[in-house]
């Protein structure tokens, strides 16, 4: 890459960092998208500009400063990057590991500088930056690995992995190539390959964070489209879609059961304690039921205080399992009253459980049967589960 001019590469990299920092700030300030992560990223980019050097502009500075700025800068911008990443992925992890690695790295750099060694500060900053990059890789894989395809996860992780690999390679160079550590002390420019590699990795990391942010926006939109805004249960349209899919699976022998759930005396709560209490009751119920359902189960709000749970069964026609689940939902709600403004509101629900029939693409027959059982439960005095006994195997 001898046709490249290293100071120009460094300036281009600074320009890119500047634009990226401004973009993150604009996103944070104007659009209120990921404001804290955006500010951390902007700070990281600014630190990077200040620390990457710009050819001969630090030529007249004292050697200690020339040595300290790149090392502390590298450490600081990796710390900021990892903090931004955690915010972006909404990780709940305490930043204790970051502060340990960052703190130890900073102490290492400072100790190395004071001992006058050329090697120690570089080794300390490289080692801690590499560790932080590895943490970032783990963070991304944990954050999105379950929800996105492996290819996309790999693409998003790649820049951080590349950063860790570069750190390892650099540490190797420092340890095994004699005289390498004097490189910075003499104020030499990096080779074109090194400058370009750093620029490319910086750009890739920026892009992968932007990709994470867009992914967050899209999941938000999907959530809003498929979920009932009040309770977070599936809305009716999404539930109908899930039901239609389950009916298609039923043809292939994958059975499921429907549990129609209706909160008892819901109107009374609304009338006696107001609409906010009613809303709180709905949220309370959904929270309890979601906790009692498996990941494959689907809970939808059909309307008002009426919900329906779609319960995939291990063997088609296994009504007993479905009845047990429904009974568990009923008892868990009955045992956990809602606290509303220092009043304990006792909540209960009636449940009707039924099996679907084949040859009913929209699942209306199954819903109607579960609904009929629900009516029976209501008529028999509420707070109980009624299960359809009649087993028809095709649509009437």
């Amino acid at each position, binding site marked *: 890459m001898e046709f490249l*001019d290293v100071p120009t590469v460094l300036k281009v990299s600074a320009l890119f960092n500047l634009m990226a920092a401004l973009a993150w700030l604009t996103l944070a300030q104007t659009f209120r998208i990921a404001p804290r992560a955006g500010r951390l990223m902007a700070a990281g980019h600014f630190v990077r500009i200040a620390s990457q050097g710009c050819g001969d502009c630090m030529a007249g500075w004292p050697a200690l400063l020339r040595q300290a700025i790149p090392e502390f800068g590298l450490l600081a911008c990796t710390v900021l990057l990892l903090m931004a990443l955690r915010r972006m992925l909404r990780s709940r992890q305490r930043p204790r590991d970051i502060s340990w690695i960052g703190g130890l790295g900073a102490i290492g750099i400072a100790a190395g500088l004071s001992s006058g060694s050329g090697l120690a500060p570089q080794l300390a900053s490289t080692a801690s930056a590499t560790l932080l990059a590895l943490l970032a890789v783990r963070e991304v894989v944990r954050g999105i690995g379950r929800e996105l395809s492996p290819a996309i996860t790999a693409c998003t992780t790649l820049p951080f992995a590349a950063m860790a690999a570069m750190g390892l390679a650099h540490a190797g160079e420092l340890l095994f190539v004699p005289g390498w550590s004097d490189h910075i002390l003499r104020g030499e420019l990096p080779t074109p390959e090194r400058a370009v590699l750093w620029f490319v990795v910086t750009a890739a990391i920026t892009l992968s964070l932007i990709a994470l942010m867009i992914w967050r*926006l899209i999941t938000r939109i999907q959530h809003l489209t498929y979920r009932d805004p009040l309770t977070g249960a599936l809305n009716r*349209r999404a539930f109908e879609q899930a039901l239609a899919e389950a009916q298609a699976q039923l043809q292939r022998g994958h059975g499921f059961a429907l549990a129609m759930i209706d909160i008892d005396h819901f109107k009374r709560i609304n009338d006696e304690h107001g609409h906010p209490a009613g809303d709180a009751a709905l949220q309370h119920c959904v929270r309890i039921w979601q906790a009692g359902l498996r990941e494959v189960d689907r809970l939808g709000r059909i309307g008002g205080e009426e919900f329906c749970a779609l319960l995939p069964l291990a063997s088609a026609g296994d009504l007993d399992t479905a009845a047990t689940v429904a009974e568990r939902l009923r008892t868990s709600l009955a045992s956990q009253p809602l606290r509303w403004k220092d009043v304990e509101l006792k909540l209960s629900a009636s449940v009707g459980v039924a099996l679907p029939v084949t040859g009913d693409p929209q699942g209306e027959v199954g819903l109607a049967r579960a609904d009929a059982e629900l009516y029976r439960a209501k008529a028999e005095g509420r707070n109980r589960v009624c299960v359809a006994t009649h087993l028809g195997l095709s649509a009437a």
Partner: protein
Amino acid sequence: MITPAQTQTLLAAIIFVAGLAALVWLALALIARIAPRASLAMACANAAAALSLTLHALRGVLPDALAYWPGDVLAIASFALLGAAVPGIVTRELAWKPGAAVVAASALLLLALPDDGDQRWQARVIDLTGAGLTLAAGLSAWRALGNGANGRRAPAPLALPLFLIAALMAARGLQTFIHPGRLDMRAPTEFNLAFLWTALVLTLLQNATLAFLVMMRLINRIERLLQRDPLTDTLNRRAFDQALCNAHAWLRRGRGYALVMIDMDRFKQLNDSLGHAAGDAALRQMVKELQPCLREVDRFGRLGGEEFCVLLPDTDIAGAALVAERMRALVDATPLRWLEQDWPLSASLGVAEAERVDESADSVLARADAALYRAKSQGRNVVQA
């Protein structure tokens, strides 16, 4: 002292940035499915720019037949694609025909022009066509953004990078008249250095601006989803309450409002006999019929189930009753057509006007509700004040 390495580095940086941007837009179009057509056009524009600059940088290395004419046509194509993509993101229509015509015409023109040693006429054609195309795109984007085609928060200055690119290309075109003979972008001259730096900044800026426009579209969609009822696209309960609260705040300052409460008659019967899908269709049909009765300032919200409410600012009870009566007649006029079967639709309406003694909007809402109840008890399909 300017070295060839500096201009080469900048050229390589622009190629890198454009190539990267092409990949990002491609990912947006294919994986995230955000504004797919405009994003694809942006990906192509960036790819064409990167390829054309690569061919330019490799002049002398590659055979001339490959490095010159194809590279020039790609350059013009990238401007044309940019010109199509920017208004496309705003208006959601991709007007590609004029651009394609310009590209074809200039490709033929480039072939027809004599080669007088330094390709100066070719360079002028490219620079000035590029300037013209981006200027046109900038103007149409400016107009579209100003019209608020993309919602209220689309400031026209977002079209600015296009004007700057047009100015830059025009400057390059003029420079070929002032200093003919320095046409190669790799030549180490002051002008080339300044040109390449500006081009790099503008490439970044242009892509960032468009990415912001796409973001804004996403955010508008989120806001819409937060405010609208998904079935009927009227305001949802929360958004309507907000609008009502605002209107009530204006009441103290002398601007009154009236409410029309609308409830579809015998909705449960319809649902039970024809099914939920028919009920949904009936609600949609009613909302669609009522929309033309509303002014821009009126707010139409779904309070729940089959109950709707219209907020009419600056309207007294007589005006509101007039609107309500027209609404009732409209709903009554068209039955619901469901599976070759007509189901008569009608609605009962209650009207109330806000008065200065009203503590909060809830009491106005309660009066409208009471009027609706009276309308229901009078046998439905009537308006009550």
